[in-house]
């Protein structure tokens, strides 16, 4: 049942997946002037952003098509619906991660001639952050509806823009720059000294966060009233 629901969800979203795939390339290709190291940081954020855009469009379609009222009238539990959505989100996130890495590779190797981006350093964080974004936005959708997703995305983009502007501010950089770079270098040093522990801790935190968010999504859908 869950597999079938996940398959139907993917079939219903083919158009959205295709349109958002173009977004992946349109973000990655213009940013190809970045160095190889910057890609390792940028690709997870690009995947998270595309996952957010995908969710915005898919939840809007979901609400317009009255998919949840249809499913709730059938003998399908909220947990089954959420598991199916989680499975579909794994497939979509994997696709976007691969697309982002392919776009980055094409950009660096054939356009800039600098070799390939660090796949190992990019792929796992990108997949993890993409999965968390998917879970988070589905949970928000089940709890508050598709309109809140749009508002949330607008606020997140504004916050991102402000963060970028703030990072360029000489005043803020003078005050917090050394503090931030010290914290980052401490974390990097600890990671370099304990690579296995760092990977295990980060992996465990990411898996717990993703599972907890999907559990919340199931709870929110179970409590959702179809008025």
């Amino acid at each position, binding site marked *: 049942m869950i597999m079938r629901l996940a398959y139907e969800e993917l079939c219903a979203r083919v158009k959205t997946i295709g349109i958002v795939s173009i977004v992946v390339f349109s973000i990655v290709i213009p940013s190809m002037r970045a160095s190889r190291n910057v890609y390792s940081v940028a690709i997870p954020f690009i995947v998270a952003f595309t996952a957010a855009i995908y969710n915005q469009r898919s939840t809007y379609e979901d609400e317009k098509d009255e998919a949840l*009222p249809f499913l709730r009238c059938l*003998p399908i539990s909220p947990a089954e619906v959420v598991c199916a959505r989680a499975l579909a989100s794994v497939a979509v996130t994997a696709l976007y991660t691969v697309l982002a890495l392919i776009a980055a590779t094409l950009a660096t190797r054939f356009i800039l001639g600098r070799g390939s981006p660090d796949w190992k350093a990019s792929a796992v964080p990108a997949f993890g952050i993409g999965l968390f974004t998917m879970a988070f936005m589905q949970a928000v959708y089940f709890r508050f509806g598709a309109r809140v997703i749009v508002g949330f995305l607008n606020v997140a983009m504004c916050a991102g823009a402000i963060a970028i502007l703030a990072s360029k501010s000489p005043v803020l950089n003078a005050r917090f720059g050394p503090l931030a770079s010290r914290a980052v270098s401490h974390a990097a040093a600890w990671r370099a000294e304990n690579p296995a522990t760092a990977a295990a801790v980060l992996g465990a935190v990411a898996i717990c966060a993703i599972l907890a968010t999907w559990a919340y999504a199931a709870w929110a859908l179970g409590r959702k009233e179809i*008025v």
Partner: protein
Amino acid sequence: MAESRDLLSLADVARQFPGFLLDRVSFSLRPGAVMGLLGPNGAGKTTIIKLILNLIRPDSGSIRVFGLDSRSHEITIKRDIGYVGENALLPPNGTACWLGRFLSICFPSWDDNVYRYYLDRFGVPLNKPAQALSKGTRTKLALAAAMGHRPRLLILDEPTSGLDPIVRLEVVGAIREAADEGGRSVLFSTHIVSDLEAVADTVTVINRGRVLVSEEKDELLSRWRRGESPLSLEEVFVHLVNSSDVGATREAMGR
């Protein structure tokens, strides 16, 4: 003991929304009976059906379907319920073929022959998406889908609303046939009284969230007469609703 024999029973079910109160609704439906849930627009018919389907939760009271609590046995209960809503909830891009395949996974007792029988009978195209069908054909598709797993209880929420008389007669005929088949019970919500005249065994009239009357249709009609001739169900319904409005107005004015 009597309660456990009922296929569906609501006891003192209340639910408040801003500007609307469903006030301690109680009624029961026996196996094999067709109940007409009558009420004007906004009376609370759809709210009652959503409460039965556990799409919304009651503030108080209990709902039992097939003798089981509707909240704790939601999935078991829904396997034996066929539901047709006023707007025939169907995925817009889903065809009749797709719907049959999908529902066969959801319902263990799905019978494709029954589904195909109703599709043929209603002339529903197999490969046309639901959004390309007329309202009447969508309702027929929803009814065929609701019948496909041979449900013990058929819940119909204003299925004939907005349909032309020809399609309405066709749909009502199919409902009657479905009810006659194997002692199936039907809860048929409508504000079109004429649809119920030939179909309903029992009638529950609600207005402004309150049950005005819930009893056998023949008993109800036998109590309402103009001289020697009995009133029609429509006349009884209008009278009941109007008199309940007068009562509510007086109550509000403190008389």
